């Protein structure tokens, strides 16, 4: 058996999605741990300076969400950008080209219903699906996590209701699992009534799909969990998944101190001051 006479098999890109139950872009340790994971995933493309783009659509492109994204990534070794569909008039860019040249596309939280409606109006879904197949990492929290699944539980209309997602991932997702009992209850009811089963994610818990097969669970805060939620003969079962803990990196100020220390050490070594 061999491929000697056949065409050389083309390397297929690994399809990766990181779904997060809820986090912010703050300087608190669990938020820093999430940013570190995003940076690591973006860097796996081998890009010298990974490109990370936020789609803040679900929030209505609020300046808060965009500013906190830039404050988290602006000083890091990456090329951050935003695609604000409500603000394109001020900064024309080629949407498709810009999105397809990213290493990671991050989708912020907000209204899942509005997110999908605006994406549909601008024809973004097909671009994201292509990006995924090309190996660009797709990531997001809250509405930006549920959008990749067949369905999610959204509070876009005020109270928690089921809504359809893009369906890149099979099954459903419910976010803020520990923090919003009414959302979790609505999810368990929906799954009991025939919505495809899936996952529940606490704030600071995440699921990472890499290629085929089951996702691996990660957690940036002790106690935050990911659950598998399934239905069998009308009974809905939740089972927690073993998760890998993501340690928080040193805060920015400390990182600078460390970098400074290393620079000095290197200079000294070059100058022959150190052995």
């Amino acid at each position: 058996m061999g491929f000697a006479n056949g065409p050389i098999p083309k390397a297929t890109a690994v399809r990766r999605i990181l779904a997060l139950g809820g986090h912010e872009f703050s300087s608190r340790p669990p938020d820093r741990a999430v940013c570190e994971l995003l940076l690591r995933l973006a860097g796996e493309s081998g890009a010298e300076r990974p490109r990370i783009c936020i789609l803040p659509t679900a929030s209505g492109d609020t300046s808060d969400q965009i500013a906190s994204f830039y404050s988290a990534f602006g000083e890091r070794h990456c090329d951050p950008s935003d695609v604000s569909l409500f603000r394109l008039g001020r900064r024309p860019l080629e949407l498709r080209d810009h999105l397809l040249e990213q290493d990671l596309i991050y989708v912020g939280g907000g209204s899942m219903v509005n997110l999908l409606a605006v994406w549909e109006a601008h024809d973004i879904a097909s671009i994201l699906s292509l990006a995924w197949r090309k190996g660009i990492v797709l990531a997001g929290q809250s509405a930006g996590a549920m959008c990749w699944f067949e369905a999610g539980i959204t509070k876009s209309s005020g109270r928690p209701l089921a809504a359809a997602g893009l369906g890149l991932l099979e099954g459903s997702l419910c976010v803020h699992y520990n923090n919003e009992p009414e959302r979790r209850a609505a999810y368990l009811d929906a799954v009991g009534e025939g919505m495809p089963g899936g996952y529940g994610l606490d704030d600071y818990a995440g699921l990472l799909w890499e290629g085929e097969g089951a996702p691996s669970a990660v957690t940036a805060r002790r106690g935050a969990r990911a659950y598998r939620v399934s239905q069998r003969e009308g009974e809905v079962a939740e089972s927690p998944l073993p998760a890998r803990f993501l340690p928080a990196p040193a805060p920015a100020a400390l990182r600078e101190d460390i970098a400074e220390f290393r620079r000095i050490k290197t200079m000294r070594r070059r100058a022959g001051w150190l052995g």
Partner: protein
Amino acid sequence: MKTAERQIVAFGGGGFSMESGNPLLDDYVLGLTRAERPRVCFLPSASGDADHYIVRFYRAFSAHRCEPSHISLFRREQGPGDLRRHLLSQDLIYVGGGSVVSLLGVWRAHGIDSILREAWEAGVVLCGLSAGSLCWFAEAVSGFHGEPKRLRGLGLLPFSNCVHYERGAGRGEAYHRFLREGMRGGYAAEDGAALHFSGEELSRVVASRPRARGYRLDVAGTRVVEMQIATTYLGDREAIPAAPLPEALSTAPAA
């Protein structure tokens, strides 16, 4: 009982969003409601419900002269629960500017498109600028992002529409081209000019600036016929409403 006169006022640009200190167009639409303290609901959907825009609305439509409210479709947990009931109880619905493509997408997702038709038929005055003007028409020229594009609106008014129709802005050229390519005839308005429709008929053009004008555009064969429409400047104290008669006639050359 309210007599259901259907009214839409489509601003080419202007009102509190663009003309701070010049309330002429906003006063005009408030006046149309004939209510002592009109109920006015702002729909900032085209801006993504931008906070600063909502604040500017409340400053311009202060509680001493109307009963202002807004609906934020990105924060439904905070606003009125029953959107239909809230919108149908208004005297005036004011739609802000921004991305008309996003606006129509979000409206469809929340069923606002059919509620607005219902409100119009029930006699609620509808108005808006820019994206908030384009949305009422069957077809529109959107210049929000990159090259001007042709798109479909809600279709309450069976015409095409182009806003910010200033000379040399590039939209005029695109509008003429779209018309030659089969877009239905319609109306354009410069910043400061507003097209006031009663039912599906243009009843008059009013303006907050002395030189702002509205235009009627039609296609005759391969030629686009553009007519400037007589406009009432609202700043003249003794302004007599002008009838929508062609003030000047110009024929644009075919491509």
